[in-house]
């Protein structure tokens, strides 16, 4: 039924060794936190992802780039089963997080999402106070420590504390776009996840707000693993350690072309299509 599986898998076969080479060249290899094995995804009858295999090392920033509609957001949303919420969605393959396939029958996506947080394309603070926005996650997770401390710590981590500390009762919706996005990051940090998925987190922000978020991403790398989807190649170059390039294959479903250390991918890509994309010949 699915035509030509070898054709779609071929890029991954090339991609995985090059990623391993990069890791070896980079000194001691960091353990992989998220391992995707032959992940396929359908919206109804339309296949959006064809067999993605990708390893994401711990405490690194992995950027996912590619032209519009190449499945990069779809892939990201598979990593915390966000696509479960779409009625017609179907997934095949495995996503291994902390030694377990998150798509296994005995995995509760609610429990899993507590460790794999997400920041969305458009800032989406709840219509609640700043404090309650940050406290929401810990509350639903049954956090028992001092909520005030946790809220302050999370807001500090997200570099928002100094701007809002005097007015934590203010509605999250009254903040500027950049502040709202940092609030959403603080909200994600407050449940103390291992991985943070970011789906074009700066696409709705102005350049100054974008710079602040990018600085923040570099700081957060110390304690979190971050996967960021971006349509902006410069952004990928600025913030990430490793970059994966996605493209639409012949069956018009998204596939992984190449993954490598960011610097290497942007200077000496091993795939002609990657080179064409980063030099602006298409996309």
């Amino acid at each position: 039924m699915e035509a030509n599986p070898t054709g779609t898998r071929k890029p991954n076969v090339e991609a995985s060794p090059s990623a391993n080479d990069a890791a070896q060249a980079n000194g001691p290899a960091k353990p992989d936190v998220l391992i995707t094995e032959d992940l396929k995804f359908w919206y109804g009858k339309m296949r959006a992802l064809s067999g993605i295999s990708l390893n994401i090392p711990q405490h690194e920033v992995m950027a996912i780039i590619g032209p519009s509609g190449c499945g990069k957001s779809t892939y990201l949303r598979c990593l915390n089963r966000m696509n479960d919420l779409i009625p017609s969605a179907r997934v095949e393959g495995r996503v291994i997080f902390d030694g377990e396939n998150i798509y296994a029958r005995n995995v509760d996506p609610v429990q899993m999402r507590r460790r794999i947080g997400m920041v969305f394309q458009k800032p989406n603070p709840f219509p609640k106070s700043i404090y309650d926005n940050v406290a929401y996650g810990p509350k639903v997770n049954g956090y028992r420590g001092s909520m005030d401390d946790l809220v302050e710590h999370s807001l500090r981590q997200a570099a928002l504390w100094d701007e809002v500390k005097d007015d934590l009762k203010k509605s999250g919706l009254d903040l500027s776009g950049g502040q709202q996005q940092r609030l959403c990051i603080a909200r994600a940090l407050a449940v103390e996840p291992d991985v943070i998925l970011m789906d074009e987190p700066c696409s709705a922000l102005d350049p100054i707000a974008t710079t602040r978020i990018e600085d923040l991403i570099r700081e957060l790398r110390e304690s979190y693993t971050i996967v960021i989807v971006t349509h902006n190649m410069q952004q990928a170059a600025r913030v990430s350690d490793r970059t994966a390039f996605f493209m639409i294959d012949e069956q018009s479903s998204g596939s992984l072309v190449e993954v490598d250390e960011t610097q290497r991918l942007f200077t000496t890509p091993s795939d002609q299509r990657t080179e064409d994309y980063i030099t602006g010949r298409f996309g």
Partner: protein
Amino acid sequence: MLGARLTGRNPVAQDVNSSPGAPEVRSQFAPRRRRAFIERGIHGVLFICAAVSILTTAGIIFTLLGETLAFFQDVPIVDFLTGTRWTPLFVSQSFGVLPLVNGTLVVALVAIVVAVPIGLMSAIFLSEYAPARVRAAIKPVLEVLAGIPTVVYGYFALLFVTPILRDIFPQTQVFNVLSAGIVMGFMILPMMASISEDALRVVPRTLREGAFALGATRFQVTVRVVVPAALSGILAAIILSVSRAIGETMIVSIAAGQQPKVGFDLLSSMETMTAYIVQVSLGDTPQDTIEYRTLFAVGTLLFLMTFVMNILSDWIVRRYREVYE
């Protein structure tokens, strides 16, 4: 500015076209007379249609107020609003409207106690839990429920619900508030559910996703994010339901009885404002008597109550609506 230029009334443009002495050059964009005439005619017809409802409202208010003012020349307004005996049709007349207001509010309260929880929960089910196919099956049923004539509900209350109540509570009177209130609750249930569901569904999907991504369960997402975000719409639905319950006539006329009294005994008969109006309208009360004018006084009070409710719900929607984007 733009309008003037389009219709060729821009003085600068005219200067260019018509230098003094020379015959005026007809613009290629000059208005076509016939088309402009039709356009104006359509405008007028549409305006009249829109004005009909406003004029009707104005006419109703005018009639109500005229007779009501005449009524208050005979009965002091304070006696009307604070009296606890309502016996305009008896020899010893009293015009204290409180028993009717009491009856109206008690029935409405019963109806709300039935309609709000069930309506809200069915709205939550339809908007947050039901798969598309289930929703497609349930929505039309709700609308059928909304389309049943109220007289059918009235007899349903009297002939079906009341006997059940009398089995459970033998002291229940044949005409009683509880039966009318419960059935009225089911009557306003579809409206409550439908408006609340609309309010829940306009909450952006991204907000739900944000909560799911933090490890919230569907119930936590619904109760702590979606419902609070939709609260203004839900409050509006509740107020409109109250307003509907206060104005409902047929069910209470048939099933709640005609005893104007102050109290909270749900198993006994009470008269509501609407039921009183029906009672007098059906009888042989002669025009231009004080009994006749009580109709308009009660009607005005009823009108004011529902009017205030509707304004209030409108205000709540405006005031507390969360603006996304």
